């Protein structure tokens, strides 16, 4: 219905504006209905301006900036209708160390209401987790679950199948 869509849209928009500023340490973002008269059919436009930069189309943003903007929008939707769990597969691939840290801090704000299952190659993301599961293929072609300790994260090369054996 129109009322419910408008209510959701307003809430997601408010969350997005706040989460973007949190992830970017400033700047400005918005989501806009392209066709405000036709709420039930209108497409949605995204505006994102990192701090200190001029507004430009989101296509010009860098790889890492696009990931951070997408995460802000995703979590904005999530916050308006929380799912009991959230599964993220290598969403931090394009992030530098500083943004990786901001991303992981943001996840912490949602942990109270939702369970997160995150796949990552980043040691920083691993260190921020509560539990680590390792998956390895000691026998070629066959996946096996192993337990990984937090002390392993920095001591061994987690990506080396031999190390995890």
């Amino acid at each position, binding site marked *: 219905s129109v009322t419910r*869509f408008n*209510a959701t*849209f307003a809430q*997601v928009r408010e969350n997005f504006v706040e989460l973007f500023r949190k992830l970017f340490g400033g700047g400005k973002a918005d989501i806009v209905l392209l066709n405000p008269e036709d709420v039930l059919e*209108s*497409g*949605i*436009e*995204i505006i994102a301006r990192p701090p200190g930069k001029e507004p430009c189309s*989101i296509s010009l943003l860098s790889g890492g900036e*696009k*990931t951070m903007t*997408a995460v802000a929008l*995703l979590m904005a*939707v*999530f916050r308006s*209708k*929380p*799912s*009991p*769990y*959230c*599964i*993220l*597969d290598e*969403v931090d691939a394009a992030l530098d160390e500083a943004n990786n840290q901001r991303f992981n801090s943001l*996840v*912490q704000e949602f*942990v109270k209401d*939702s*369970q*997160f*299952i*995150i*796949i*990552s*190659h980043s040691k920083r993301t*691993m260190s*921020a*987790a*509560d*539990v*680590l*599961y*390792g*998956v*390895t*293929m000691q*026998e*070629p*072609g*066959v*996946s*096996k*679950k192993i337990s990984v300790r937090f002390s392993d994260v920095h001591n061994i090369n*987690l*990506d*080396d*199948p031999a190390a*995890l054996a």
Partner: protein
Amino acid sequence: MQIKKLELFGFKSFADRTEFVFDRGVTCIVGPNGCGKSNVVDAVKWILGEQSAKSLRGQEMLDVVFNGSANRHPLGFAEATLTFDNTSRRLPLDQAEVAVTRRLYRSGESEYMINRQSCRLKDIREMMMDTGAGLNAYSLVEQGRVEVLLQSNPQERRAVFEEAA
């Protein structure tokens, strides 16, 4: 309605019965390239009713059945079970735990179960539909897909908002 457990048996590279127990908070899954981490994400989608083989990176649905390795023969079926904590009774069953099972045989035949009771795929999808925990666009982000919300055309983006409304 958090995930308590995921069991895989014959699903993609998980030739041996493998169980992942999940807790509240953040669980991080780690391991080398190609060892099976994203296959775990595919299993969750599959159990929740994903019908597009392409969305599971396959050419046809039978691609999810373990098809052998250097030392193993292909298996005759793929099976995966997702167990939810239902103390909140968010799922419409009067049980503290709800286990959803999906099985696919090489013959192409499928089986579906809720708490070991045989059911149809549509029963699973309908049960998940109002919980915010089904196959929606914002509680599961596949590898390489985080920027999809930014790239997609305004109409596709709208679909995500509608799921949250």
